[in-house]
């Protein structure tokens, strides 16, 4: 299995952290992110002076070089000025985009990007035997996804288990 380079969006990072599967992500991806995304993830630390786990872990991964901060040369302006730098970075480098935000999805897809979210990552981890069925279900439940998405992901997970169990 060849690791892929990926541009990390704040939404994906937050969900894999709260889902408890963050430590598996580096087995699959080399992580890169932009200063704007880093600022979004660090918001609790920088603005609220609150030691949130997602921000503290992010900082430690940046310090150890597990996450590399790189900015795109030309930011896209699909929604607002300066936004979607994670998409711009993925587009410029032809990297994966790790993002749980559904709204810019079609634009990212039409730009030819490979977009992956946290729920499907949890399903893959279960399929690859990295986590149990129960852990995968729990991880999906703990994310900030909508009830509909969680329900669909859990239904697929259950179907997968049935196929695996024969």
């Amino acid at each position, binding site marked *: 299995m060849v690791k892929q380079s990926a541009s990390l969006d704040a939404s994906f990072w*937050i969900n894999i952290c709260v889902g408890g599967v963050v430590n598996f992500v580096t087995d699959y991806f080399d992580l890169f992110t932009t200063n704007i995304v880093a600022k979004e993830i660090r918001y*609790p630390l920088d603005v609220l002076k609150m030691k949130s786990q997602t921000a503290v872990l992010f900082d430690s991964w940046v310090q150890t070089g597990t996450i590399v901060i790189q900015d795109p040369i030309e930011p896209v302006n699909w*929604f*607002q000025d300066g936004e979607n730098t994670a998409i711009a970075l993925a587009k410029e480098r032809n990297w994966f985009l790790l993002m749980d*935000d559904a709204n810019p*999805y079609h634009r990212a897809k039409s730009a030819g990007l490979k977009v992956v979210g946290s729920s499907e990552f949890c399903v893959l981890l279960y399929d690859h035997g990295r986590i149990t069925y129960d852990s995968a279900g729990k991880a999906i439940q703990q994310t*900030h996804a909508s009830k509909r*998405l969680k329900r669909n992901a859990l239904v697929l997970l259950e179907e*997968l288990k049935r196929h695996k169990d024969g």
Partner: protein
Amino acid sequence: MNSSGLITKSIRLNPDENDRLKQISELEGLSEAAIIRQFVIQGIARHRLEQVIAAYERGEVDLSAGATYAGVSVYHFMSELEKRDISTATETERFMDGLKTLVETFGGSDALRQTLGYS
């Protein structure tokens, strides 16, 4: 506008509302004016958040921009969307496409391929 740069606004309350305000003021140990100011600021923030959430639901903003406009963290904004169970039309399609992309890139079991409808 006074010397502190604050603008004076006057409001009218009925007796019930006035009594409640008095009670809160005593309970919190703050002047009635300070309590009213606090409530107005919180109300404006809440209204702004609701407006931005509605814009997100309509697909007009992404999470980053939504959080910025609402003046909250992306984490907080995602939690508020989850609390209100805001879902978008594309999310299930995004999930299925994402899973197929992962399988094509990193491989998947026959069971997963079968689940995804690969022949």
